[in-house]
C-alpha cells in the first residue's frame, strides 16, 4: 500500500494528538482530520487541561500510569523549550486538599508529577476545613493555544484539516483506507456506544492573575487552575446530563466553593461560564475494529472515552492508537499481497 489514507474523526486534544502521532510514525501515510468542530469549540477547549489523572475503573493501573508518564514526559520537554508559550504548556504548583484523609494516600501518579509530598501543617492552615493534603508541581495545557499549536504542527507535516460532520464512519469507506475514531462524546451517536455517557462539567474562566497556584479539593468537585490568561474555576460532575447551557445556580455554587478555598477570588473579574460534556466510560475505548458491508472492509481504530482525564493521557493513548493504525496498515498490506497471488 503506497500511501495509506487515514481519516481521523475529531479535532479535540485526542483527535489532533492522534493525527500527529500517526503522521510521526507513518510518514508515508496521508492523514486527514475531519471534524464538525475545531478549537475554540471543542470539549477540550472548556477543560483546564491539568495533568492530574482520572482513574478509569476498567483499565489496568499500570497501563494508565504508562499513558500518563508518556504524556507528562512529552509535555515536560515542550514546557522547557522556546515553544512553551506558543504551545500553551506551563508548569504549575499547588495543593490537593482533603476534608477526610483519603484511603489511598499515594496516588499511582505521585512519582510522575514533580516534588509530590504531603502538605505541612503550616500549609494546611490555609485550608481550615481540610485535614490532609498533597503538594506537587504538574503541567497545564492551555486551550485554545495547545490545540492551535497541534494544528500548526499537523499542517507542517502535511496533514489537512476539514470541517465536516461525519454521520456514520462507513460513509468514509470509499475515500479512506483506515478511519480513526476520536469523536469523544460524539461517539455516542457516531458509533452508537451505549457505554459512553456524558458527565456534564460547568466551569468559570475568570481574570485573577494574582492566583499562581492550583488548589483542588480531593473530591474532584472544586478546583482552581491558573492558566496563562485566565483561571479556571470548577466545577460540576453531572452524570447523563447532555445540556450545554450554563446553569446560573451552578455558577454561583462553583464561585462560592472556590472562594471558600481561595478568598481572594472574590475580586475576580470578567467571569465567563463554559460547559463541556466529559466523554466518560469505564475504560478508554482504544481498540481496532473492522467494519464490513457487502464484502468491503473498513479498518477502524477507536480512541475515545477519556472522560475527565483526556489531557492527562492524551499523548500516551495517541501513541497506542498510532501503533494500532500501524497494525491495520500491516494487515491491509498482508491481505493486498495475498490478493495478488
Amino acid at each position, binding site marked *: 500500500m503506497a500511501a495509506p489514507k487515514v481519516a481521523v474523526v475529531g479535532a479535540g486534544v485526542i483527535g489532533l494528538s492522534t493525527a500527529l502521532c500517526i503522521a510521526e510514525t507513518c510518514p508515508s501515510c496521508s492523514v486527514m482530520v475531519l471534524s464538525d468542530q475545531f478549537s475554540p469549540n471543542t470539549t477540550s477547549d472548556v477543560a483546564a487541561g491539568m495533568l492530574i489523572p482520572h482513574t478509569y475503573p476498567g483499565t489496568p493501573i499500570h497501563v494508565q500510569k504508562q499513558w500518563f508518564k508518556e504524556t507528562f514526559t512529552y509535555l515536560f520537554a515542550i514546557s522547557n*523549550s522556546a515553544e512553551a*508559550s*506558543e504551545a500553551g504548556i506551563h508548569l504549575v*504548583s499547588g495543593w490537593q486538599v482533603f476534608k477526610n484523609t483519603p484511603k489511598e494516600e499515594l496516588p499511582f501518579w505521585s512519582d510522575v508529577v*514533580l516534588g509530590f509530598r504531603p502538605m505541612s501543617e503550616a*500549609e494546611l492552615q490555609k485550608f481550615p476545613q481540610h485535614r490532609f493534603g498533597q503538594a506537587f*508541581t504538574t503541567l497545564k495545557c492551555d486551550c485554545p493555544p495547545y490545540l492551535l499549536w497541534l494544528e500548526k504542527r499537523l499542517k507542517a507535516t502535511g496533514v489537512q484539516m476539514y470541517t465536516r460532520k461525519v454521520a456514520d464512519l462507513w460513509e468514509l469507506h470509499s475515500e479512506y483506507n483506515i478511519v480513526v475514531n476520536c469523536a469523544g462524546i460524539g461517539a455516542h451517536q457516531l458509533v452508537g456506544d451505549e457505554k459512553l455517557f456524558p458527565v456534564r462539567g460547568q466551569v468559570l474562566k475568570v481574570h485573577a492573575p494574582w492566583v499562581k497556584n492550583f488548589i483542588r479539593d480531593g473530591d474532584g468537585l472544586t478546583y482552581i487552575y491558573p492558566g496563562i490568561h485566565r483561571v479556571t474555576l470548577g466545577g460540576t460532575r453531572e452524570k447523563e446530563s447532555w445540556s450545554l447551557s450554563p446553569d446560573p445556580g451552578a455558577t454561583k455554587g462553583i464561585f462560592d466553593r472556590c472562594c471558600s478555598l481561595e478568598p481572594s477570588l472574590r475580586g475576580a473579574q470578567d467571569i465567563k461560564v463554559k460547559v463541556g460534556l466529559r466523554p466518560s466510560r469505564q475504560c478508554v475505548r482504544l481498540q481496532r475494529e473492522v467494519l464490513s458491508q457487502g464484502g468491503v472492509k473498513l479498518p477502524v481504530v477507536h480512541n475515545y472515552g477519556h472522560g475527565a482525564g483526556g489531557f492527562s493521557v492524551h499523548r500516551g493513548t495517541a501513541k497506542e492508537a498510532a501503533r494500532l493504525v500501524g497494525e491495520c496498515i500491516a494487515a491491509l498490506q498482508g491481505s493486498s499481497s495475498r490478493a495478488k497471488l
Partner: protein
Amino acid sequence: MRVAVIGAGVIGLSTALCIHEQYHSLVPSLEMEVYADRYTPHTTSDGAAGLWQPYLSDHGNLQETLWNKETFDYLLGHLGSPAAKEMGLFLISGYNLFTQPVPDPSWKNIVLGFRNLTPKELELFPGYSYGWFNTALMLECRSYLPWLTNRLMQRGVKFFHKKVESFQEVSDNGMDVVINCTGVRAGELQPDPELQPGRGQVIKVLAPWVKHFIITHDIESGIYNSPYIIPGSEFTVLGGIYQHGNWNEENSAQDHKTIWENCCRLLPALQKAKIVQEWSGLRPARPWVRLERETVRHEHFQAEVIHNYGHGGFGITIHWGCAMAAARLFGSILQEKKLASPPQPRL
C-alpha cells in the same frame, strides 16, 4: 505631639501606619505628616518585584531574621482578607538554584513547604545541580504603597511633596519626633559611610505563562548578580544586577543584555515575551539595618529621631518587623515625654 515621617517608600509608609495604628488612640494629640520628594510609583520600592525572600545568609543577625519572620507571618495573616488583592498580596511558589550544595537558609521554616529540589526538577535548569522549592509571598508595591497611603489618609495623616534638607528644618517646623525612612539617600541628612547604593536593573515583560519565581545564585558573584525571574500579577520581572557603589539611575544597555541573555537561557520561552518596561534603582545597602533612636542636637534645636533605613534588597521582606520595632522606639519616646502613661483610675 507632631510626628514627621521622611520617606514614602515601603519603609516610610508602613512605619507611619504602624505607629499611627498603635498610638493615635493613646495620644489624641498625635499629628502625623509624611514628607517625601518621591511618591509611588517613583520610589525604590516600586521597582522591586515584591517577592518576600531574605538573603541566603543572615550573617548571624538574628534580629533581622526575626523581623523577616514577623513580616511574613503578618502578611500571611492578611492573605485571606478582602484587602489582599488591593494590597497586591498573594502566594507564589518557586525555585532557588545553585551550582553546588549550600546550607539551608535561616528562613527555611518561615516560608511554606521548604524542600530540596528533586533530580527531575533540576533537569529544568541545566547548569544548576542543587536547589530549593518553597512557597512564599508577593507584595507588589505598586498596589501596596497606594493601599498604605489610603489607610494613612483615612486616618488624617497629611502628605507633603517636599525634599527635606535637614533634620533641623523639620524640627524648626514644630515636629517632636522625626522618623527617618529616607532609604538610599539617608546620607544626605546625616553622613553614613556604611550606607551604599546597590544598583539594580530590571526588565519587565509580559510572560503570563510563568507561574513560579526562579532565582539563581552564583556564590562568586554575590547576591542578585545572577539571573532571576519573578512573575507578578501583571508583569514578569527579569533581573540579576547588583552593583555596589553605583549611583547611576539610568538604564544601562550592557546590563539589559546581561539580564536578557541570562534569563532567556534560564527560560527559553522568554524569547517570545514582550518587553514592556526597563527600570533601574538603588538598593539602600548597609551591613545591617539602621533601626535606632537618636537625639539630634544642633545649636538651638533638638529632635528625637528614629532611624529606619538601610534595608538593601530585602525591604519588602523585612518592612513590618522593622515598622513594629520603630513603633516600640516611638513608645519609649512617649514614655519619656510622659505622654503615654497607662490610664489612671479616677478617684
